[in-house]
């Protein structure tokens, strides 16, 4: 009964209902859109890291710590037999890391020099370009950000200086053979990539590597010797930590959007109660109990939320679908800022996100509809009939 009357009230008050529903719907849409965008960014960052850097997982030299470059000199050895077999079967790729310095255009730049097998297909990097220039002494692959920083172009040569395994400084000339356009800044900024055999020769570390990345479908070897197995979860924990650190800001935004929706409904309900005092009195005179009048206003708020959900599906749903299909082009390249952000952001709207947002918005709308309606319970029918309301 209440539902029927509430629905009639809402449908009857066309413009007022539309404005309430529209405001709620915009907030609803913005919450789903912004959260979807954020989820899309997170998923993209994870996927790019897995595709270009992690693959199925890794085996690390026991001393290797990517956060501790001073230990790179000691964190290398020949591969344990089972890992070696994986590499031979092309199911894994070894990477040898060392600190180095480059001198582009007479400037000194400290870099991480990484040796990688040019024929690998484990991580998504254009390493094959390293094998195409046989006449070059040290072929070097760099990222677009690094090329910008060092003012380097394809064909440019520069001096590379390093310390070999005996602690002796050595230097030679490297030539940029390819500039890769990667979204993963960790492969780009401050990194130069050279063929692993060349790196082993330069560093006098024959057949040695710092870590090995293995293919996505590959399972863990039984015996990795002293080398430490690192799974995907471990390897993406820095991204997860960054996401976790960013959570409060997204939660604040979520709360602001939700508050806007709640305030809109609350305001509309308070106004309704003031403006509809006589109507409330009439309903009481016709025999509606106070509890039912409170229920009526609360149900009206609830139907508001349902209508807002429907409006979010169409036309806002079309916008959500379009952005999920086509993405949103970003105005600039964020690689140099240390963000893994796609050139086109593709929002991800999971069922969980839609259901949880719907439930949350619905719940909030019911609460903010109920709170002002409680004033009705304090009203005397005679006052309400005269249009007087409780303040």
């Amino acid at each position, binding site marked *: *009964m209440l539902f029927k009357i509430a629905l*009639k009230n809402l449908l*009857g008050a066309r413009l007022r209902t539309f404005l309430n529903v529209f405001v709620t719907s915009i907030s609803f849409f913005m919450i789903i859109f912004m959260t979807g965008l954020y989820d899309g960014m997170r998923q993209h960052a994870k996927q790019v890291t897995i595709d270009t850097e992690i693959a199925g997982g890794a085996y690390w030299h026991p001393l290797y710590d990517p956060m501790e470059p001073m230990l790179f000199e000691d964190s290398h050895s020949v591969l344990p037999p089972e890992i070696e077999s994986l590499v031979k079967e092309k199911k894994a790729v070894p990477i040898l890391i060392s600190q180095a310095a480059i001198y582009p255009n007479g400037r000194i730049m400290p870099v991480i020099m990484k040796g990688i097998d040019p024929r690998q297909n484990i991580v998504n990097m254009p390493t094959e370009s390293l094998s195409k220039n046989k006449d070059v002494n040290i072929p070097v692959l760099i990222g677009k950000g690094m090329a910008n920083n060092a003012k380097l172009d394809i064909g440019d040569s520069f001096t590379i200086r390093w310390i070999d395994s005996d602690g002796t400084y050595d230097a030679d000339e490297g030539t940029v053979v390819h500039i890769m356009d990667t979204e993963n800044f960790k492969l780009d900024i401050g990194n130069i990539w050279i063929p692993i055999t060349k790196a082993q020769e330069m560093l006098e570390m024959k057949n040695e590597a710092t870590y090995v990345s293995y293919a996505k479908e590959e399972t863990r070897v039984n015996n990795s010797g002293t080398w430490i197995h690192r799974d995907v979860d471990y390897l993406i924990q820095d991204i997860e930590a960054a996401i976790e650190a960013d959570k409060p800001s997204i939660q604040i935004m979520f709360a602001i959007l939700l508050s806007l929706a709640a305030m809109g409904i609350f305001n509309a309900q308070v106004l309704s109660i003031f403006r509809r005092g006589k109507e409330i009195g009439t309903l009481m*005179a*016709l025999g509606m109990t106070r509890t039912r009048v409170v229920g009526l206003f609360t149900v009206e708020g609830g139907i508001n939320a349902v209508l807002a959900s429907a409006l979010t599906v169409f036309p806002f749903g079309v916008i959500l679908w379009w952005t999920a299909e086509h993405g949103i082009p970003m105005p600039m390249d964020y690689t140099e800022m240390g963000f893994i952000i796609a050139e086109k952001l593709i929002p991800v709207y999971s069922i969980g996100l839609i259901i949880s947002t719907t439930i949350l918005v619905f719940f909030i709308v019911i609460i903010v509809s109920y709170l002002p309606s409680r004033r009705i319970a304090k009203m*005397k029918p005679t006052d309400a009939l005269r249009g007087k309301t409780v303040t």
Partner: protein
Amino acid sequence: MENNTVISIQSLVKRFPVGGNFFTALKNVDLNLHKGEFTGLVGPSGSGKTTLLNIIGGLDSASEGRVRVLDQSLDNTTHNKRAKLRRKYMGFIFQSYNLLPVYTVFENIELPLILNKIDPTERIKKVNQAIEWVGLADKRDSKPNMLSGGECQRTAIARALVHQPVLVMADEPTANLDAENSHNIMKILTKLNDELDTSFVFATHDEKIMGYLKRIIRLEDGTIIKDEKTKKEHV
């Protein structure tokens, strides 16, 4: 109902807080109304007629005294019990119609039936019948802002009578109407009083409707100064 008594009031006093004091709106009112009566509470503004009507309708409560309506005591009853009494057995007609602006004539009249949980088929039948009583068949889908004052009041009458209550209370039902409309409204009400045997209680100071009343109770300063039966017979 005992002896066809619809309303029984004994030693009713009603006080309202005004500033730090109390204003006594009704003083020791004793009154009995019977089934089928067509009664007017008549008096100047501030005489207490609307207050008395509100107490009879359970919209307000007495400060002292006993009030029984339709065999139910209204002393110390809950809001819900009073609401149920109004919903099932009473109808209200207001001076300013109090129609719900977003509803059509049909929907306004239908409202008491929805509140009484009458099934939809029966509802349509009863609403159509009420629309016939007040002659608004051509306005059933109009909203109140499209109606004249007389049409609004006829809608309000249909709404008050659609669930065929035992008692209808009308607070200045003709105050906002011109003479012609006032007479039309009163003719409808007298006809329904005769046909349905519904009791009517009016609060009014409109001389135009005095001639339709079967009983006139005159109030002054919260006291009944005269209670007279007219010789008026409607049919």
